[in-house]
């Protein structure tokens, strides 16, 4: 259930802006459902640049892995030896830099979906990210993102904070008619005119009236959000339970998403991304470039779960990347653009402690185009399951043109 405070605070803060229907922001205009939001939150984390799924979750039981990566391959796990991959289930192992995630795995709060990806064969970062964010592989003209469509299916919720992206730009997946907010920092999300309120009022008026376009709509939503955030005082909420976020883009983003959740501003969908996965050169193995990215990635996810504590029961985090990387090491101790990768799901209601998806194998004849891990789970199968089972969204509008050809993964109890 949504915190009843949400709406009250908002009404108080938003003042008369709510009355002026003509100028109402987009998040107020969807009243198709009368029900209340259910308090569930979905957090999507995008690993931009194509993460090497075979290093993130290593198939050490796979004969085809051996010998394909002479300088960047991971050593199989070995009991009692630190700095080695961490066994998950006798076949798969977690990269050693992802050690902070192990307690979540053991608590069955973390699941892995391997050999997951897009049915589209592009190896272009840009196109593949676009397809994954719109949820329409092969179709570029899709106007909105799948997360935006997900928000749209949900009951009305009178808050500008239904959908938030942490970052300088609104990602494709939250573009669409839902009034998603993007911000780099909660703390700086305000008009900074000192004690002089007239400037804020002036700017607000400038966007209140006038044509209905992207700019004005965004402006109106911005000022509603500013007011609500100020009264919720979200930026003052410290990390709880001793959570220690690593420095860097993802840690900062998740720390602030946790603040929004704890401030009960009505958040339903949040998005964060992390760069630096395009490891063409000098990828490293247990240590090195990629290991450093994993350290930040795993540390940030683990800190987030710890920070939210029991509140994680209502939160699911899903990680994704546009494609995976070549099975074989390239000429520069790195990997080139591949096909399937691994994705993680953690949080409330997830039947964790398991690796989901059919493993296609790494023998040459099993590889996609003779070089890459094949896709056995369409990312839309995974995303649909998370959106419908966790958020309670109806499946139909989420992924236009998608007809599931495989049974659901059974990720949720």
């Amino acid at each position: 259930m949504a915190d009843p405070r949400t709406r009250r605070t908002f009404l108080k803060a938003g003042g008369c802006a709510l009355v002026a229907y003509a100028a109402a922001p987009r998040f107020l205009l969807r009243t198709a459902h009368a029900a209340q939001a259910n308090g569930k939150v979905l957090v999507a984390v995008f690993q931009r640049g194509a993460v090497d799924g075979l290093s993130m979750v290593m198939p050490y039981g796979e004969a085809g892995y051996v010998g394909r990566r002479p300088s960047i391959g991971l050593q199989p796990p070995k009991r009692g030896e630190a700095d080695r991959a961490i066994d998950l289930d006798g076949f798969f192992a977690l990269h050693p830099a992802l050690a902070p995630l192990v307690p979540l795995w053991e608590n069955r709060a973390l699941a892995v979906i391997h050999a997951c990806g897009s049915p589209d064969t592009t190896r272009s970062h840009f196109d593949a990210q676009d397809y994954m964010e719109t949820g329409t592989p092969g179709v570029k003209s899709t106007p909105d993102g799948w997360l935006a469509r997900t928000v749209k299916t949900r009951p009305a919720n009178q808050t500008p904070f239904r959908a938030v992206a942490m970052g300088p730009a609104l990602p494709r997946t939250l573009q669409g008619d839902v009034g998603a907010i993007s911000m780099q920092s909660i703390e700086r999300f305000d008009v900074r005119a000192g004690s002089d309120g007239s400037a804020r009022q002036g700017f607000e008026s400038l966007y209140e009236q006038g044509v209905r376009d992207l700019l004005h709509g965004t402006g109106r939503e911005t000022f509603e959000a500013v007011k609500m955030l100020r009264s919720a005082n979200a930026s003052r909420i410290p990390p709880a339970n001793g959570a220690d976020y690593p420095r860097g883009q993802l840690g900062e983003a998740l720390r602030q998403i946790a603040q929004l959740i704890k401030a009960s501003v009505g958040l339903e969908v949040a998005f964060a991304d992390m760069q630096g996965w395009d490891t063409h050169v000098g990828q490293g193995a247990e240590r090195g470039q990629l290991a450093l990215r994993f350290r930040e990635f795993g540390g940030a996810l683990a800190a987030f779960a710890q920070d939210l504590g029991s509140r994680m029961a209502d939160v699911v985090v899903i990680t994704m990347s546009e494609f995976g990387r070549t099975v074989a090491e390239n000429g520069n101790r790195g990997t080139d653009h591949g096909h399937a990768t691994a994705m993680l799901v953690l949080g409330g209601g997830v039947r964790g402690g398991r690796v989901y998806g059919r493993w296609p194998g790494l023998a040459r004849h099993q590889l996609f185009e003779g070089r890459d891990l094949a896709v056995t789970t369409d990312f839309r199968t995974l995303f649909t399951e998370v959106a419908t089972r966790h958020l309670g969204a109806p499946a139909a509008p989420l992924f236009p043109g998608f007809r599931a050809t495989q049974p659901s993964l059974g990720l949720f109890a």
Partner: protein
Amino acid sequence: MRAKGALALLALAAQAGCSEAGRGGATAARPGMTDAAPSSAARAADRQIAHTLNRLTYGARPGDPERVRAVGLSAWIERQLRPQTIDDSATEHLLAELTTLRMPIAELLREYPRPDPKLREMIAGGTMTRAEMQERYPADKRPARIAADLQAAKVVRAVTSERQLEEVMVDFWFNHFNVFANKGDVRWYVSAYEREAIRPHALGTFPDLVRATARHPAMLYYLDNWVSARHDFVIPAGPNRGRKTGLNENYARELMELHTLGVDGGYTQRDVTEVARAFTGWTIDRPRVEGRFSFRPLMHDRGEKVVVGHRIPAGGGQDDGERVIEILTQHPSTARFVATKLVRRFVSDTPPPALVEAVAATYTGTGGDIPAMLRVIFASREFHGADAGLAKIKKPFEFVASAVRALGGRIDAQGGLALARASAEIGEPLYLAQPPTGYSDRAEVWVNAGALLARMNFGLALATGRYPHVTVDLAPLVAGSDPRSPADVLDRLLANIVGDQAGPSTRAVLAAQLADPQITRLSMDDRGPANTDVAKLAALVIGSPEFQRR
């Protein structure tokens, strides 16, 4: 209350008007000052000038429209297309102190060495204090200085250069052939990249741009081609002697996807591999000492290649890469791809197909001559069409530069660096687009809540004189208005910043501000605070919906 505020405002207007008159009354020719209403033809011409300035420059400075009118719009455009004919010594003077801008790569590598990893250990181990480290390794001798100088220079040029179209095109092509200044050795190469590979060809030909970027160490490093070798290559000497290396597809793929054909330009994974083979051996000579292009025959794959249907016979050596560039730059998909991007920059987020076709035909007919393509765009019906006005959202850098220009801002190199931070805050850190796509040129990416607030905050800081190392001069913005009429003062301010494009609701909101108690709280005899009134109005205009567009 209202009267008092209006008086304060008017006092400034009157005073500005006097000083203007004292300088010879350059404003006398402005339409607002003449008794007769301007003819509709004159208004249309003015609008055309304002629109052209919006699109071909980083925004009009006070007085720019008059200057363009004086030489004639088409003559002005022609001069902008030939930047070397325009004197730019004032800007050159401002850039003088940014010494790394002119240094060759080898000198930069020598003068701005990477920190000795031992230093960090010594600090961690307690054998050296941070202060000692600072002394031995001062901030302005670190490699970060190179990108900082380049950022400062980019802002200084955008704000002050008379060669505005050239600056717009340098930004456009750098972004098209993007490199990320923080990737490894690119740190030392990035300023040379803009200086040697982009700037000389920004108004030259497209194939020259591809040739220059393909062999530049910055691109070779950024897209990893410098380490790409034939599949069975074994490093013959040096610390990695005996190590087997091989093909790296990164550059080959982006060359086709992002630089030439476009992602739907009709190439396959097979073509990617073939192009990568053709470019094997294009590498960097001693990357941390010389940082120069070099072709290494030993790394090169001597076999035959077939690239988008064209056979490249075996044994071509370095010419294989040149041949690939020839094939790709002569491909019709490249003509269309480049035309689409240019039209998107200058006309609309949804490029009109007929204009794209016309520009693509010019590309094909002229061998990718950039001024020729631009002439087609600037003369087109689509460029001047009724729906073209303010159709584009300024990207953050364009917004920052145009705001400073609109307010008659003066900056030095330090101001340039300070303003680069503003661009970053609004979402566009300069030279720091990590993916090879560069920054987007579409509205949806830049219009969002956090960025919009950052734009307003920048407008406030800038107009109220709080932005470090930048001085704005608001007096000329209200000069020449009728001191007896607050509405006239506001009109003049709006006209100077957004031309005749201010919507009625923006005008009404700003007029209401004149009656705002916080604006009118100041006394008339206090000259400084009186300025604040205009400053706040100016800040609101900079943050207004109209000023986010061009």
